[in-house]
Each structure stands twice: as structure tokens, then as C-alpha cells.
């Protein structure tokens, strides 16, 4: 990757300042939001901050380089198991384990990327889907190591006393947000920089037309592998944070998780980081909103039960039909129109 960035060092610093500001802005906004929230919504916010990192990985992979993965959940599982094993078996600190999870899953992404570089479009989609199905079953197959279905019980622990002394009593939910948020901010910083530098432009060239990208001297295969490594690192970090909500087990990283993440990215806009944030808010809060709306309406239980998944499915279809670029694309479109 360093080779790709070097020639644009100058620009890098300029962009670096903007993305630093935006990342800090995100951090502060989440903290401000959380102060308005009850404990449950604080935990939802932490959930968003966690999943956001995974959705960023899709923004990179699919939005910026055009590779579709239906198996990000499985890569999250790699990060989750990696960090949980480091903590439970080797007694490492949670923080160190999170950082190592990035490397473990990036390494996994390297192998995956080597395979993926040979694949395009539906081949990649299908292969990653099979992977999403197979990886959890590895945890069951090698039960003595991965603890099977029951999984590895891990959590964020309790807030350290120095922090409580500093800012007053901290609930478990708030603590989970505080643990996740720095990582989310760093992930945002990383994604912003990656996408705005020459590396990002290289990726987009590959996305838009492999042949002409190759003609302009871009090493397609290497570019794809690099994207995979970066995206896997992000997904693995998200998976580690997601697992430390309480459990690392196959049922935490089901196939649906991968599809949910993709849905968030698509609804918000595959190519927009703001869209990724929006989409993640939607998928996390939508079930609650539907529950609020239907609380006072008498509807049969069966319909009520399936309403969230139905709504998300319809939302996905509407997005694809009305504006495949998602909410961000629609917003830009509207702004564009107003100008004229």
C-alpha cells in the first residue's frame, strides 16, 4: 500500500487534517447523542458504532473497488474469535486483542483476497456466501478449540475507576460506547484517507473498468488484494468489538449478519461514508421504530414478527429501484436539482 500512497504525500496531509476533524466530529456527536439517550439507546449507539466499522469495510470493498462480498459477517467472526481466544486463552488485554484482531483478519483477508482477485461479480458473491456458511461450522467442528455453539464468553468489563472518578458514574452501556467509539473514529479516519488518496482513485478505476484500469498501468490483482486486506481488517475489528458485547459464537455471526451489513451500505449509498452512517442508523433503529409505531395498532402477532425483515427487504428493493446510489445518492441528486 505504501507504494500507492507515496507519490501523493503532499495532498495526504491536507486530507489528513479534514478527515481528522470529521473523525473527531463523529466522536463528539456520538458522545453528545448518547447523553440524550437512555441506557438501551446508548447500547444501540454502541451497536451502531461497532457495525459502522463493518459497513465501512463494505463501502471500501463494494463502493470503492466494486467487489461484492456476502461474507463480511464471516470475516467479523475471524476477528471475533481471534480476539476472544487471545483474551480467554492467553489472558491478553482486551485493547491489545482488538488491535491484534485487525491483523489476524487482515491476514485472513490476504488469503481470501488472493482467491478473490481471480473472481469477479457473482463468483465472488457466491464464494463469500459459501464462506459465511462454512466458517461458523468450523467453530463447531473444532469444538475443543473454539468452544462450539456455546462459544467464548467475553465482554467489555466494567469501566475503570479513574474514568468513573473523572466523569461520574458510568453505566455498562455507556462504557461499551466509550470502548467502541475511539475505534470507530479511527476507522472513519482511515477510510476517509484511503478513499481520497491516489490509492482510492486506483480502486475506483478498477471498479469502473478493469480493462482501462489495466491499460493505464494499474496492477488489477494487487489492487484487489490490497482492498480485501484493508476491508478485512476493518471487518475483523468490527467483529471483535461485536463479539465483546457478550459472546463470540457461531450464532453471533450468522449469514444474515453479512446481508444486514450489505443492506445498510446499500440503503445509505454504497459509495458514501455519510451514507454508510445513515444506513447503519436505519438498520439498527428501524425495528425499534416499527415497534413504536405498531405498539398501539392491533395487528396479528405473525405479521408483527415479520414486519422488520419485510420492511428492510422492501427498503432494499426501493433503494435499488429508485436510486441505486442510496440515500446519499438521492440527497446529492436533490441538491443537484435545486441548483439548476
Amino acid at each position, binding site marked *: 500500500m505504501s507504494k500507492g500512497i507515496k507519490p501523493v504525500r503532499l495532498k495526504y496531509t491536507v486530507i489528513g487534517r479534514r478527515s481528522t476533524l*470529521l473523525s473527531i*466530529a463523529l466522536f463528539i*456527536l456520538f458522545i453528545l*447523542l448518547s447523553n*440524550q*439517550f*437512555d*441506557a*438501551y*439507546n446508548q*447500547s*444501540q*449507539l454502541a*451497536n451502531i458504532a461497532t457495525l459502522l466499522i463493518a459497513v465501512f469495510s463494505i*463501502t471500501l470493498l463494494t*463502493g*470503492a473497488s466494486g467487489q461484492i462480498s456476502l461474507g463480511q459477517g464471516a470475516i467479523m467472526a475471524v476477528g471475533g474469535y481471534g480476539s476472544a481466544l487471545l483474551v480467554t486463552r492467553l489472558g491478553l488485554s482486551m485493547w491489545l486483542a482488538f488491535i491484534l484482531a485487525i491483523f489476524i483478519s487482515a491476514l485472513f483477508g490476504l488469503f481470501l483476497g488472493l482467491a478473490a482477485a481471480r473472481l469477479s461479480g457473482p463468483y465472488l458473491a457466491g464464494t463469500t456466501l459459501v464462506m459465511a456458511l462454512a466458517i461458523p*461450522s468450523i467453530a*463447531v467442528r473444532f*469444538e475443543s478449540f473454539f468452544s*462450539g*455453539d*456455546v*462459544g467464548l*464468553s467475553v*465482554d467489555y468489563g466494567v469501566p475503570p475507576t479513574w474514568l468513573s472518578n473523572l466523569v461520574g458514574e458510568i453505566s*455498562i*452501556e455507556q462504557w461499551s460506547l466509550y470502548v467502541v467509539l475511539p475505534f470507530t473514529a479511527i476507522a472513519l479516519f482511515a477510510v476517509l484517507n484511503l*478513499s481520497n488518496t491516489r490509492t482510492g482513485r486506483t480502486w475506483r478505476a478498477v471498479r469502473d473498468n478493469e480493462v482501462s484500469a489495466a491499460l493505464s498501468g494499474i496492477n488489477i490483482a494487487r489492487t484487489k488484494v490490497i482492498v480485501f486486506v484493508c476491508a478485512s481488517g476493518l471487518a475483523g475489528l468490527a467483529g471483535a468489538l461485536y463479539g465483546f*458485547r*457478550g*459472546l463470540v*459464537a457461531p*450464532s*453471533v*455471526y*450468522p449469514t*444474515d*449478519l453479512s446481508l444486514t451489513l450489505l443492506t445498510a451500505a446499500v440503503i445509505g449509498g454504497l*459509495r*458514501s*461514508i*455519510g*451514507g454508510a*452512517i*445513515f444506513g447503519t*442508523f436505519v438498520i439498527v*433503529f428501524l425495528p*425499534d*421504530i416499527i415497534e*413504536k409505531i405498531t405498539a398501539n395498532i392491533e395487528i*396479528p*402477532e*405473525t405479521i408483527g*414478527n*415479520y414486519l422488520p*425483515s419485510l420492511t428492510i427487504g422492501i427498503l432494499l428493493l426501493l433503494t435499488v429501484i429508485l436510486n441505486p446510489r442510496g440515500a*446519499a445518492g438521492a*440527497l*446529492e441528486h436533490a441538491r443537484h436539482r435545486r441548483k439548476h
Partner: protein
Amino acid sequence: MNLRKPLILTVVASALVGSLAISSVSASAAGDPGVSASEIVLGMQLPQTGAASPGYNKVDDAARAYFDYVNSKGGVYGRNIKLVVKDDTYKAGLTITSASKLINEDKIFAFFGSVGTQTHVSVIKDINRRKIPDLFVNSGYSGFYTDPKKYPTSFGGLGTYTVEAKILGKYLKEKYSDKKIGILYQSDDFGRNALAGFAAAGLKFEAKKTAASFVAGTQGSLGLGTQIGQLKANGVEIVIIAAVSSATAVAYATAGALAYKPAKWAVISVGADATTFQTILGAKGVPLATSAAMLAGTISASHAPAAGDAEDDFVKAFKKINDDFNKATGAGKVWDNNIMQGMNIAYLATQALMGVGKDLTRAKLISYLENNGSKLSSAAFAPLGYSKSTHEAFTGFWLGEYDAATVLKPLDGKRVVYTTDSGTGAVTVSNYKRPAIAADALPKVA
């Protein structure tokens, strides 16, 4: 992927507005959450949709029906019992989220009857850390109950898989010592717990010879035939099934197709719901009489009366309440083991809440269950194990055989309840006598 400030601001602003609208911060009164002068709020997590939901999605409606009945009789010390149910689709990620919602937004007093080992394991630590009672978990995983120091607030709602397998295993090993015994299990925590229980009873199985398995949730769609074919080829005469009821039905049908007729089937109670068995085979075109004949002679174990035992007082009472109070429609209301289990734990919960008295707190409830829990009664013929040293529920099972009318009848015409623990303890005969249900079907506490 360009990020303009207005966009991120729009996103955050709309998120702010949206989430303010849905957050409801209510000041909690003194005392534990979820208890007021007029209400006790309980929370339940179970798969209401998704691959693991069939059958289990009836448990919540049954429990609610019983609570509604209690409420119609004036509730518990004037408090109505409200059951808030969350669908976790059997995915632990959602279980964690919905547990937080039950705790922080629905302000539940206690968790009640949560279904599923794989999902409950994701929240049990947190629930216990918050000292919230975790009543009558619908999981037979002994790891939740046998170490109250680890999980002081969790109490079982089923007999453990290990206890059941030990009792069933001992019987089969003695009765059929001259026969080849094999097992078909689903390869998940449930199946493997059962395997461990049988091993404790001295029944060991050999892969590809006497042990066959399938991936849980696939219901054999990837080739159950080959697995059962292997049991057949190896001359297994007694087949134990440790799988959910819908898979049991498929297993019987598959064996039938292969002309494989073991001398005896033995099915772990989780997988031996006659209604599910017959419904599934019925839809496969097997007439009721035929599926009844297929099930007849099958050995199973139970802690409670058979759902089909129309003579049992508890069954009669619960069935009536199900008819009158269950708001579910269609298949969700059809009387079966799942509904009886839901009613029975609701009966237990009502009893425990009555037992604690008017001044209800979480700590008092837990201490009541530890000190008096073993004296609680229910439809079960087996005693409850609750004590300071274990939080296992029903410590015993009786063994029976399905008759031609799909009712599980005690072996040799006499109901003998065996009891043991989830460890290495011996299997003994229990002399527990089940107290009768009162005429008003409400539990009575001394």
C-alpha cells in the same frame, strides 16, 4: 465516496431527531424496576421467526395465556403479571440487543422462560451481573445452573439434557444389554450434551457405526438418508434420537423409506412432541393413524404429564386455560408439549411470586427460590432441584412408551420417576408425590 459536511450533518441531525423520538426515559420509582402496586413486568426472549422458531414460538403465547388467567383472577397481590416478549430469531447478536431493551426500556423485573442455549449464553453473564432474576430458562444446558456462584440469578425451566440422558441411558443399557444401541443426534450443544449424558450412563457410541448425526437446522436436507442408512447397515437395533421434534419426524420417515425398522426407538423429550410429529408427517401425506402407529412403542422420557394425557388434572386445567386465554391463532394455539411447558413455567413463576409475598424485590425472589424452590410444585412429576448449591429445575424424569393413541404411557403401566444430577451422581428412584392442582388452577403457597 465523497463526504461533504452538510451530508454528515444531515445524517447526524436526522439520527438525533429519530432517536429522540424513540427514546423514552422514565424515572424509575424506588425499589426494583418492573414492580409497581399494580404490575409485575417479566421479559422473555425466544425465536419467534427464523429457522429455529417452529414449535418454540408457541411457548410465549402459552405463558401469557396463563398469566392473563392469573390476572383475571386478581393477579398476584393485586399486581397483574405482564409478559414482554422479544424475538431474537435465534441469533445471539439480537439477543444481546433485545436483552438491553428489556432491561432498560421495558424495565422488566425479571427475565422469564428464555428459549435457546446458544442465544441465552450471550446474555446470561450480563443478566447475572445486574442481579436480575433469570427465571426458568427453557434450556436443558446444565452449564447454566450447576454453579450458582457463577450465575446466581439463573434458574432452569427444564430438566437438563444430561439428567435425562443419564436416566434414559441407564434404562436402555440395562433393558437392552443384548442389543446394539445407536444414536442419531443433531450436531449442536443439545445433541452433544445428550451424548455426554449417555456416556455418563455408560452408553458410548462409535462414529459411523452406532452414532449418526446431522447438522442442526438442516433437518436432514443434506442427506439424512446416508446417516440412517449407516445405522441400518451396522445392524443397530435400538435407535436413540436426540433432535428436535420436526427432525424426529423426518428421521422416522427416512428410516421407513429405507425399510429400516429398529426394534426400538427412544427419543429425548425435546424431540418427542407427538403433535409436531403427526402434523409434519400428516403434511407429508402420512395418515394420522399411520403416523400414530409409527410412533407407537417409542420410548421417551418426561418430567411432566404427557400432553396427550387427557386424564391428568394439570393437563385438563391448562388445556382449558389455553382454550380460553391463548390469543395466538391457528397452529400457534394447538395444544402440545410446547404449550404445556409455557403454561407450566408460568404456573411456577406465579407460585414463586406469591411465595415471596407482597414486598417483592429481586433479591427476595432469588433467595426465596434458593430456600423454598425445591418445595414449589407444578405439573411435573419430578421435584425441583433449586437450592443454594444448584439451580437445576426438574431433577427427574419418568420413562414411558407411546401408545397407539400417541399418548406417552408409563413403562409397564406404572409411573416411576427416576432422579439424578447433572454430574456423576447415581440414578435413583424418586419418592416425590406431585401435589394436586387446585380447583381454580392457581398455585397455592403455604
